[in-house]
């Protein structure tokens, strides 16, 4: 096995979150009753014509800028001709020879290393409708709600060398299209679908092997499984003296296997030609500047800034920019808090993330808002409460009991920093634990920690731990 190398390229269909379809004014909302979002243009009545939705073009350009790609000053919509019941015009309008987005790059992290994945192109096209089987016996239905939904198809070079790299790329892309707000990222509803081209070759071989394309993967887990299975299958086939035929395959999640659905010989001749109903798409430098101005700070830039401005580690900065929602949450928290970034980072990545994971929630639904969290961080920073007490306050905030100050006040959790009061408690603890004092003096350092614990317990956790340490040390020495 180890003498083989897998070569992977991805084609991802990203459904753009425009208000209406790419060539008609119909809504693209998911889940409507069949054919209620299909107007005369979508059902391709005689005489209707497509009109390009500028919002879809803006989405494509946003993506192009986000991956540092060339934006074509002139791109062309073509017709891809084939017959299928869910394709109302008998052709799909898709950019073919001249796409709007050219070569770009996306950097992924796998383990500890970074890798640049080259993006070949990204082009605009319309989605097809859906065939509905089984609604009535012997008949198939057609739902054209999805027909004409805008898609951006993003194609990479065959740059990935493992299932892990392919999944890392797909995840990174998935976050990016949500980050720049061109896609809702909902994989269950088909808003982000991947086709994966897989081939294998002997290590050191320059020529690529024959590839097979795994179609329509809509989960990262399936993608991983499908690539691993397909890679194994291709290697075994070749080692057994067989040949790989170029084919389109489907992944079956139940069996974990891939299976060919059509071979190259059955492939359609799509008879692409420029759509005479649409003018070439012209994009000026000024258009691009306008769109660039509306683009948010990109994750890579934000990550670098977090390291630079806040002194965060590469790991922390990466985690905090893993998604736009986390980054926004962190930024908002830090802004209200105004204190040490590392403290805010630890809380967002620690307690907040843990609670979200535990409850299966997304950060936008966190009951503790950035403002609430910042209120808590202020009280930690000004020594009103200890980190330990802060966890209890956080739990109370999560449960909806109010802000940090109110909870601290109500529950009397304010830290004791009055030296006299702490000395009194320490004296009591030392008197009650003579045996431990003896142990400490006999050289057992562990006993000191036990005495700190006893003191904290006696203060109901409210004594300032640093002061307790200092006073105990002094008294035991004396």
């Amino acid at each position: 096995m180890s003498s083989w190398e897998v070569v992977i390229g991805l084609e991802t269909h990203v459904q753009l979150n425009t208000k209406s379809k790419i060539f008609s004014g119909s809504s693209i909302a998911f889940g409507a009753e069949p054919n209620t979002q299909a107007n005369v243009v979508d059902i391709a009545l005689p005489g209707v014509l497509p009109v390009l939705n500028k919002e879809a073009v803006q989405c494509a350009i946003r993506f192009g800028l986000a991956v540092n790609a060339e934006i074509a000053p002139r791109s062309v919509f073509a017709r891809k001709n084939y017959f299928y019941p869910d394709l109302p015009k008998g052709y799909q309008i898709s950019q073919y020879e001249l796409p709007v987005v050219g070569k770009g790059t996306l950097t992924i992290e796998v383990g500890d290393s970074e890798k640049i994945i080259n993006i070949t192109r990204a082009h605009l096209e319309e989605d097809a409708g859906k065939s509905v089987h089984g609604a009535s016996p012997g008949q198939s239905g057609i739902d054209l709600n999805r027909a004409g939904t805008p898609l951006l198809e993003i194609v990479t070079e065959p740059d990935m060398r493992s299932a892990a790299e392919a999944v890392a790329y797909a995840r990174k892309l998935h976050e990016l299209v949500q980050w720049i707000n061109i896609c809702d990222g909902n994989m269950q509803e088909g808003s982000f679908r991947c086709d994966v081209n897989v081939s294998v070759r002997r290590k050191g071989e320059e020529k690529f092997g024959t590839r097979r394309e795994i179609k329509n993967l809509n989960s990262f887990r399936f993608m991983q499984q499908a690539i691993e299975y397909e890679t194994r299958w291709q290697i075994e086939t070749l080692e057994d003296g067989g040949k790989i035929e170029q084919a389109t395959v489907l992944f079956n999640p139940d069996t974990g296997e891939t299976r060919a659905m059509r071979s190259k010989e059955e492939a359609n001749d799509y008879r692409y030609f420029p759509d005479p109903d649409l003018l070439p798409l012209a994009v000026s430098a000024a258009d691009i500047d306008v769109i660039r101005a509306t683009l948010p700070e990109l994750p890579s830039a934000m990550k670098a800034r977090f390291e630079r401005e806040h002194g965060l580690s590469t790991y922390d900065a990466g985690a905090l920019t893993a998604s736009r929602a986390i980054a926004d949450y962190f930024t908002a928290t830090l802004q209200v808090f105004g204190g040490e970034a590392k403290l805010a980072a630890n809380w967002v990545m620690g307690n907040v993330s843990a609670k979200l994971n535990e409850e299966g929630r997304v950060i936008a639904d966190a009951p503790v808002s950035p403002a609430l969290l910042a209120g808590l961080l202020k009280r930690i920073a000004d020594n009103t409460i200890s980190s330990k007490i802060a966890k209890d306050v956080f739990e109370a905030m999560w449960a909806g009991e109010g802000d940090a100050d109110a909870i601290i006040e109500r529950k009397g959790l304010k830290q004791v920093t009055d030296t006299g009061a702490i000395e009194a408690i320490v004296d009591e603890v030392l008197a009650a634990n003579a045996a431990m004092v003896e142990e400490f003096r006999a050289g057992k350092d562990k006993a000191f920690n036990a005495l700190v614990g006893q003191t904290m317990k006696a203060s109901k956790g409210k004594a300032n731990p640093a002061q307790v340490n200092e006073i105990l040390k002094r008294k035991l020495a004396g």
Partner: protein
Amino acid sequence: MINHSLKHLASMLTSKEVSSVELTQEYLNRIARLNPEINAYITVDTELSLAQARAADQRIANGDAGPLTGIPIAQKDIFCAKGWKTTCGSKMLETFIAPYDAGIVEHFNAAGAVNLGKTNMDEFAMGSSNETSYFGKVQNPWDRTRVPGGSSGGSAAAVAARLCAAATGTDTGGSIRQPASLCGLSGLKPTYGLTSRYGMIAFASSLDQAGPMAHSCEDMAIMMNAMTGFDQRDSTSLQREKEDYTRDLGKPLAGLRVGLPKEYFAEGLDAGVAKVIEAAVDEYRKLGAEIVEISLPNTMLSIPVYYVLAPAEASSNLSRYDGVRFGHRAAEYDDLMDMYCKSRAEGFGAEVKRRILIGTYVLSAGYYDAYYLKAQQIRRLIAEDFAKAFEQCDLILGPTAPSTAFKAGEKADDPVSMYLQDIYTIAVNLAGLPGMSIPAGFAPAADGKELPVGLQVIGNYFDEARMLNAGHAYQQVTDWHTRMPEGIA
């Protein structure tokens, strides 16, 4: 009344000499009497027409009448009109009732015109004789044994036989101008992008353009004022200021430079037709025009280029007729592929199938560069020919068609000879220029029958007003456009 100009009819309507209902009824009576033989209309709906006429009379009574309010016109059956059967001359759409109005139909409705019905045409506008219509041949009112031309043959016959005051047509390679020539009326194909294609059933999208068919240039100018304008639902529609196409009518032609392309007077042109065109050119000389000889060297390539590009676009445009959502579906089929094959085999006629096959072939992998791409390159050369010519002249004159109307059935089995009917008109579509045909006299056929001849006027982009004035000036000194066929009184 049936020989009055649109302007005169409008004044009769506003002065209440006649009501729109009376005028409409007059035409409906004529249609009832003459259409069973001439077959110019596929669909007539008396109730729909009279309802529009009543509404027009109300508008006139309210003092809200425009130049076309209450005027009965005919719509080529290629335009979707809400509630009207819209067949495009095909069995495929035999039962299709359009649920929406084409941009052109909206314009006429807004103007208060009355729709008399939907006129016959070659199937999906593919033909030059109206013989490919599923709904039967159309007779040429000048000789009922002859074709009216095509594809707007129904509209041409309806205007010539006074079955409407004016009509709409569409022109992809000559489909307005050639039938206008063969039926002795005026027809104009505007600059590509001036009239909306929304709701006009597509044949070849980069060539199709709607235009008026009428008795005179003045009538066409009035029609053009209603028909043109930007339509945001058509991405190839041009955003321009509205023009008044009547504004130049009556201006003298002195100093007008008229170009005669030598290729239009070469082999293939009927001698009788040539004589008529030469006489018309003389008339222009008398009107003060300066005549210059020009050359359009790539004219002969226009037919092969057209018969690559138009079928390529058509093969794709007609893919939507698959029997799934509307239109003809075979009664019985085994599976999906069988349903497609049977529905399309039954729904389309021979000429449509021929062009789908040609178009599919030229777009196929391995042939695309040799046919489609090469044709697009030559298309640019043809446009350049015209650009050079218009450095030497303001308008181009020549024959519209190489011959007068031919006998029904004469060319039905010879597609190439049929395609040559459009030798002088096709290049205009390929270049996107405006072209017009006006009656210029009569020439004898082989059997001695005197038949109408059309003079083609080609203008530069957006020069329709100048063309209409040039035609109008000619129509002030000639009476060819007022002649009426026998037997239609």
